[in-house]
Structure formats: C-alpha cells, structure tokens
C-alpha cells in the first residue's frame, strides 16, 4: 500500500484480498452497493466468456441459483462455408420469421380482382 500526497492510503484493486473490493469504502447505501457488485460480477464474467450467456448461466452469476447449469452441448466442428452458403442460410432464416401479412386483406384484394375478371369475361361474351 502506498500513501498519496494527502496522506490517504491508496490501494491497487489487485491488492484487495477478495471480491468485493469496496467494502471498506465509506458508502452508506448497502443496497446500491450490492447492485453494483452484482453488475460488476456480470461484467467480469462477460469478459471471460466467448459465448453469450444462457439464462441459467446469468442466474448463476447473479446468485439466483447456487449450482452452475450444465455447459451447453458444444457446437459441431465448423467446416468453412462459402459466402453463397451463408447467404442462402441467412435468407432461409429470414423466411422463418413471422410474416407481416394480412391474409384477409390479401384475399379481399384478390377476390376483387377475380370479380373484375368475371365481369370482363361476361362483357366480352355479350359483345
């Protein structure tokens, strides 16, 4: 530990023996301190993770559950793909999204067109 110009003790974060590091700081709002601690835990865990957290992992990090959930099944070893394969897969995936399509409105429009066709054919027959 070092002393600064005002004589106050300075301590590097790494010198604290264990997490949480700021227990000896003069903070009155313990609830806020707990929240900051949880938030910091999430940030630290996120830095160490290469994958997005599952809901179970996040619950574990936040202390909602006491046991770490089983590690998700590892993905199959990835062979390299062509850009065309990626494009087609991405396009397929976009087709899986729910459509913003009003089928009743579409039917009404198409029925109207059919009626017009019927009228036209009758007019031609009459002529």
């Amino acid at each position, binding site marked *: 530990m070092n002393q600064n110009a005002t004589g106050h003790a300075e301590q590097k974060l790494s010198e604290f023996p264990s997490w949480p590091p700021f227990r000896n700081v003069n903070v009155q709002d313990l609830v806020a301190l707990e929240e900051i601690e949880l938030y910091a835990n999430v940030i630290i865990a996120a830095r160490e993770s290469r994958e997005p957290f599952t809901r179970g992992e996040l619950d574990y990090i936040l202390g909602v559950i006491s046991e770490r959930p089983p590690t998700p099944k590892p993905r199959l070893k990835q062979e*390299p793909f062509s*850009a065309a394969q990626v*494009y087609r897969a991405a396009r397929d*995936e*976009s087709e899986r999204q729910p459509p913003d399509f009003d089928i009743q409105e*579409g039917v009404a429009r198409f029925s109207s067109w*059919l009626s017009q066709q019927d009228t036209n054919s009758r007019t031609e027959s009459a002529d």
Partner: protein
Amino acid sequence: MTAGTDGYEETLDGDDEQQIIQLYHHASQEVFKYAFTLPNMNHYQAQDLVQTAFEEAWRQRDRLRKSSLGQKKAWLKTVVVRREIDRWRATGTCDLVAEIPEQPSPARDPIHEVVHREVLRRCWEEMRVMPEVRQRVAFLRWALEWKTAEVADHLGITAATVRWHLKQARDRLVEAVGAEVSFLEEEADDGGFGPDAPRGRAT
C-alpha cells in the same frame, strides 16, 4: 378430392374460384415471406408480387389443377422471382410463366446445424443494407446460382463488376460474422446452372 397439408384439398375440381381462394389461404403467407427476401423489397412490393403470382395462378389454373400444394407453392414462388428479376433486366424479358417444379422443397443446408440462427439473422441484416445492385448480384449468383456472365448480361454490367460486388458482399459478411462463421478462403468464381438450364428457379 384428396386432403393435403393442413386440410388443403389437393385437387382443383369443383368451383375454380373457391379453389384458388383456398390456395390463397394456404400459400399466400409463405409466398409473401419468400417475396420479402428478394433484394431491396418492401412490404407493399411483396404484397403486389403475391397478388401478381395468384393472378398468374388463376390464368394457369388448368396446368396447376393436378399439382400438389408443395408444387403450387414452389410454382408461385418461381413466378414471384421471375416477375421481379424481369423488372431488373437490362434488355429483353425472361419467360414469366414458370414450369411446375418436381422438387418443391430443397434439402436443408448443413450450415443450419452449426451456425446459430442469430448469426444468420445478422448476416441477413447486413445484406439488406447493401446497395441495391449488390443485393441483386448476390441473389442471382448465390441464391439462383446463375453464372457470373449470365448475371452480368441480365443486369447490364460487366463480369468484373459482378465479381467485385460479390467480393464486397463477402467481405462485409466476413466482417460482420467472421468471428462466428468460418468462411472458405477461395470462393469459386463460377458454377451452378449450365447455359441451357432454366432460369429463375425458386430456392
């Protein structure tokens, strides 16, 4: 009358108008989603393409009468894509009336098993904001598997420009999802359909 997918009656006997409306109920959403994946497509254009495809289905109802629901859907998608790429064409027109496909559902690519769908969605978002001509080039070359020369001829640009757009599109995808997806180092320059193969296959 034969009961098909989700209660759809496969045969188009009886009242033609009722049958085509029934087909509309069973196929229009899928056709709309397909149309919406076309380059630079907005909601209203996709709706118009659905309307156009069903108008064509009405005109061709005698040909479609004995097709399965899957074949009809694939046929409608083919009409959609032919109508749209016909609009892009630099010269001439392509055949609007599509053949009824024998294989309406192509096999699913194994890429779906190893690449997370969220990553694929990000890829698609990247594609959707690319310049319109690049989207068209990518669609014709990568989705419909046209040859580079065919794409160039259709869009009225040079083969070198087609290749440049494909490289730009690939680089953008690599930049966006290269951490999660392993890309081939060398992309095949050409391939896909031969010169006599039908154009505008629905994929």
